[in-house]
């Protein structure tokens, strides 16, 4: 399966936020609540990653609920791709 690198995912995350007029902070410890990145935004990002890899990344909500920071988003999408 094709994979999308952490840097590419980060840049896609920037695109999702930019479309809402919000910047992506450089600090990976930034809490998602502070930048208004909600679960549906995560879905959009995951689906964009799927578009690139050509594979579905299905997952349960408990994993999603543990995501709190920008770094968590990047980690989770890395894990999903390697699962």
């Amino acid at each position, binding site marked *: 399966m094709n994979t999308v690198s952490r840097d590419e995912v980060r840049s896609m995350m920037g695109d999702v936020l930019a479309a809402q007029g919000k910047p992506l902070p450089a600090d990976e410890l930034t809490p998602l609540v502070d930048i208004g990145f909600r679960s549906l935004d995560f879905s959009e990002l995951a689906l964009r990653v799927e578009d690139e890899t050509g594979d579905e*990344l299905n997952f349960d909500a*408990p994993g999603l609920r543990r995501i709190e920071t920008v770094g968590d988003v990047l980690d989770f999408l890395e894990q999903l791709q390697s699962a």
Partner: protein
Amino acid sequence: MPEYTPIPPASCVVVSGASRGLGLALATDALKRGARVAGFARTVTPELQALADAHPDDVHVAAVDANDSGAVAGFLRDAADRLGPLDALVNNAAVGQDSLHVHTSPERIGEIVQTNLTAPLLLTRAFLRRLTARGGRGRVVMVTSVCAQRGYAGLVAYSATKGGLDSAMRALAREMHGRVLVNSVAPGFFASEMSSVLGGEQLETITRRTPTGRLVEADDLTPIVGMLLFEDTNIHGQVLTVDGGSSI
């Protein structure tokens, strides 16, 4: 007008998903109320086996997958041979869900629909065919959910199956006239293996949004299902919601 004769109280109750959680509580309660009980799940837990061991003449249990219609038919046959005519059914077995619709695989959606909607429809059909063939009268209770009435994120396919069962229940109530009383009991969230995926924060939010201030428990549900199985209520084709008012 023919004279009205009430549907007799259940004497032999089939409970699907009787191995734990609400199903085990319902099987135990039906037994306490004097009925014989036939319960199945994919795994017979020590608790269900203990119930059977303690009441060998009144309880029949087996490991049966609700999605295996041949095994389900065999179970009904064996249960009736051992316990006598089956005159009540509680469709309780189900699998849960906790995933956003767009991130739930088509296979998983298929499994949820199969177990929570197709399997209970087929079990009900098999049960009613036996009952109807011998001119029997009886009762059917569907255990559905408040999710059929209100939107909850992460439960799209699950909610569809519960809404589907409520709709089927009403149509069935018409088809069976007054010969079989058919109703649903729709619980709010209660603690069980199914709801264990919910985090403490979510349970707190649900409790806060519940007017009575407490989550539902199996003990809130057993009297309602018991009433539908054993009492002469004239309740037919209804969804009885037990959720502490959370869905109002």
